[in-house]
């Protein structure tokens, strides 16, 4: 037998083993991709299944009498009198009329526990809107307490969760349910109110407004600065050590952990320049520094993609270097730059670590109305709610995450659409 035939034999023998290895390798690859896709799927399913309930919330129907004597208010236009008014008496009396048989201190306390502790103030707002109601009686749907809400939803789903409820309360809810006096309604509080210690009263409006102000400032600062820097580096910078140094800095800043930017903001903006804590101004400044590298890098890529022939044509027609850039290169690379800006903004919207450092983690009830009002942002609100012990906040947190994710999805879709639609290929 010759040597080559020997080899052939060997190769044939090993062939099936090698083919098996090939197949195995292919399966490793498929598994890896499936793991990644499964992670996406599990994450979204988990969040949605936890959070979808928060968009509806339990209300209890009660007969409310706006009794002047009980509230202790005669003149609805006098703000001082309004703050002194005993508004809780309204909701409490209504509860007692609904369940007249309840007596005893602890039973009464449990009874009042059925409705939100802020219900009295909701009734106050209602009364102020319609002053004619004073002295009248009407049937009103009143916000239920968060424990009741959790229990009622889980009970409707067939797996009652009654850990924080007493037997009496369960009976009362059963009674209310049979009379059709408890129901789930769309949870508008979630979208119209600021933060609260009471889960049923808490909303994301404050955080969304805070995010909005912070992002506006970030965009206004980082987009022009980033584009200018990119134009300089691509079109005007001489090739020397200084330029190289700038580039190294930009690339490194893009990879610096975001929390370090928080330390920078704390030490420089707050302790050195005395910018007040917790305000969108300082948040916007920190996020600007953080998103700048992203915007510079994407803008440079956009400028690079404009073919040199365009510049040469403009220069050939007698345009100055500046006119070339301003009139030709910039408009052509603008879609790419906008895409980069949107991606940078999406990053900034989801960022929370540096904002924890600069005090945007405070508990703020009021909805911010400007750049210098104390505020928090959506991701930090999620962090705060996730830390709260009340069970109802899990649902709220997931709902807030769903809202945050939908903002991000919209922004990224717009970015992809812009890139596909407006970017030209040469």
């Amino acid at each position, binding site marked *: 037998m010759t040597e080559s035939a020997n080899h052939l034999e060997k190769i044939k023998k090993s062939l099936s083993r090698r083919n098996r290895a090939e197949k*195995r390798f292919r399966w490793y690859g498929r598994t890896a991709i499936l793991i990644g896709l499964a992670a996406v799927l599990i*994450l979204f399913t988990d969040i949605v299944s936890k959070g979808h309930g928060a968009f509806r919330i339990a209300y209890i129907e009660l007969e409310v009498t706006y009794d002047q004597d009980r509230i202790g208010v005669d003149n609805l236009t006098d703000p001082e009198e309004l703050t002194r008014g005993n508004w809780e008496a309204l909701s409490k009396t209504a509860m007692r009329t609904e369940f007249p048989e309840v007596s005893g201190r602890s039973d009464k306390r449990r009874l009042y526990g059925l409705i939100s502790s802020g219900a009295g103030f909701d009734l106050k707002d209602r009364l102020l809107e319609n002053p004619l109601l004073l002295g009248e009686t009407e049937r009103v749907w009143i916000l239920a307490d968060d424990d009741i809400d959790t229990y009622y939803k889980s009970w409707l789903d067939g797996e009652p969760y009654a850990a924080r409820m007493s037997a009496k309360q369960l009976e009362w809810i059963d009674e209310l349910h049979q009379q059709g006096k408890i129901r789930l309604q769309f949870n508008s509080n979630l979208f119209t109110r600021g933060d609260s210690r009471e889960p049923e009263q808490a909303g994301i409006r404050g955080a969304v407004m805070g995010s909005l102000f912070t992002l506006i400032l970030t965009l206004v600062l980082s987009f022009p*600065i980033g584009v200018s820097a990119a134009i300089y580096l691509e079109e005007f910078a001489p090739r020397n050590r200084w330029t190289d140094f700038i580039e190294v800095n930009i690339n490194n800043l893009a990879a*610096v952990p975001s929390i370090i930017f928080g330390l*920078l903001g704390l030490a420089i903006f707050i302790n050195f320049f005395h910018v007040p804590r917790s305000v969108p101004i300082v948040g916007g400044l920190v996020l600007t520094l953080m998103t700048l590298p992203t915007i510079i890098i994407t803008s440079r890529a956009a400028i690079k993609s404009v073919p040199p022939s365009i510049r040469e044509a403009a220069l050939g027609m007698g345009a100055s270097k500046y006119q070339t850039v301003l009139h030709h290169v910039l408009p052509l690379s603008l879609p790419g730059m906008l895409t980069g800006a949107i991606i940078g903004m999406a990053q900034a919207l989801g960022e929370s670590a540096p904002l924890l450092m600069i005090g945007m983690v405070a508990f703020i009830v009021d909805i911010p109305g400007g750049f210098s009002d104390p505020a928090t942002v959506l991701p930090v609100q999620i962090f705060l709610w996730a830390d709260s012990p009340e069970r109802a906040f899990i649902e709220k947190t997931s709902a807030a995450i769903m809202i945050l994710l939908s903002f991000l999805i919209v922004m990224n879709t717009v970015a992809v659409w812009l890139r596909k639609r407006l970017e030209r290929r040469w």
Partner: protein
Amino acid sequence: MQATNILILILGLGVLAFFLGRGRSLALAKPLGGIRKLHSLPSYYGMHVALWCALPSLFLLCMWMLFDDPLINRLVLDSVAAEIAPKDTASYNLLINKISNLADGILPRKGESAALIAAADHLVSLRVISRWSLTALLLTLSSLGLLWGWSRISASFRARPVVEKVMQNILLGCACLAIFTTLGIVLSVLFESIQFFRSVPIFDFVFGLEWSPQTAIREDQVGSSGSFGAVPLFVGTLLVSAVAMVVAVPVGLMSAIYLAEYASRSVRTYAKPALEILAGIPTVVYGFFAALTVAPFLRDLGASFGLSVSSESALAAGGVMGVMIIPFISSLADDVITAVPQSMRDGSLAMGATKSETVRRVIIPAALPGIVGGVMLAISRAIGETMIVVMAAGMAAKLTANPLESVTTVTVQIVTLLTGDQEFDSPKTLAAFALGLMLFTVTLLLNIFALHIVKKYREQYD
């Protein structure tokens, strides 16, 4: 809001200056026979006047904003009566706050001493003076600039080069912001760290085995040893990052290989963006997922096998962090794998190697430097990742290599040390900056090294 109004005023003046300058250049050009006789286009003359009008004022405004408050505070404190004069920095800050709150009407004036009220009134009057003098100064400066720029306009005046020079310097300034940011980071963490190392020796910090940052208020307080040995934090950080890498590197690398070498076009167009979704999800969402879904699941799973898994285990935090990093590694690896020249694949296949053998024996070795660089970048991200560990890892510093136990990390400690109500110059807050310095140094070195490798590698095949 005062500053905003002034800013709008200056910008408005600038716009006015632009039109005045342009108008003058047009008027000058008319008798000469049209704008062709001018050196530059009319808009450049306008820009020239506008720049003269706005830039000096903007500069003055910035300077004023920086030095306004400290100066006024100084003046107020120099004038306060001796009985309330502050003795040290802390009481200085307290007094300033109190006076300014009184002046703003946040604190009621009833019941405060006459000296304080006098100081508050003094502050109010100084602020009014400052505001009016600033407005007057800025208006004068803007008008002077406008007049100067306007008077320089003539048909032979070279407006375009001047304007372009100024613009170029503005652009350069924007580009240099990156350097200032880096400088700001270095200075801010360095100064506070030096202050920290004055009270805690640097050797004890880097090599100390015990971390309990509560400093004692009383001598005999329990559990307030105040030891700042950061080794448990470093070990915890490395443990969590190692778990993350164990998840992310194989999955990320294999999916990159599959997508680059095996997948059909349609799979690639859908699977790739789907994986990239993982990169776009905010870290706080991962933190919530890790703390409320993965950690309890792992704990129950461990319990069913008779293992005690902490509900804040390093495994949960690291595993979820690994999922977050998958797309990061896969896209970096994808870049380097597709950069390997096709001829190398063809050569290997022509020699009779199967596809997987080509990948393993030819492509991966060729792409190795790039892959290593990508993994190093991923490690630096894992080390610096904050929200996941803040929400899902523990607070107590434990020196352990067991991923089922709860550990704490550098970033968790920075957040816990700085979000409490602490005096700024206590060792506790300063320790956070020292940790920040460590974090920055390590990630910076990793990044520089990784970027260097990746760049070298790219040049090899370009």
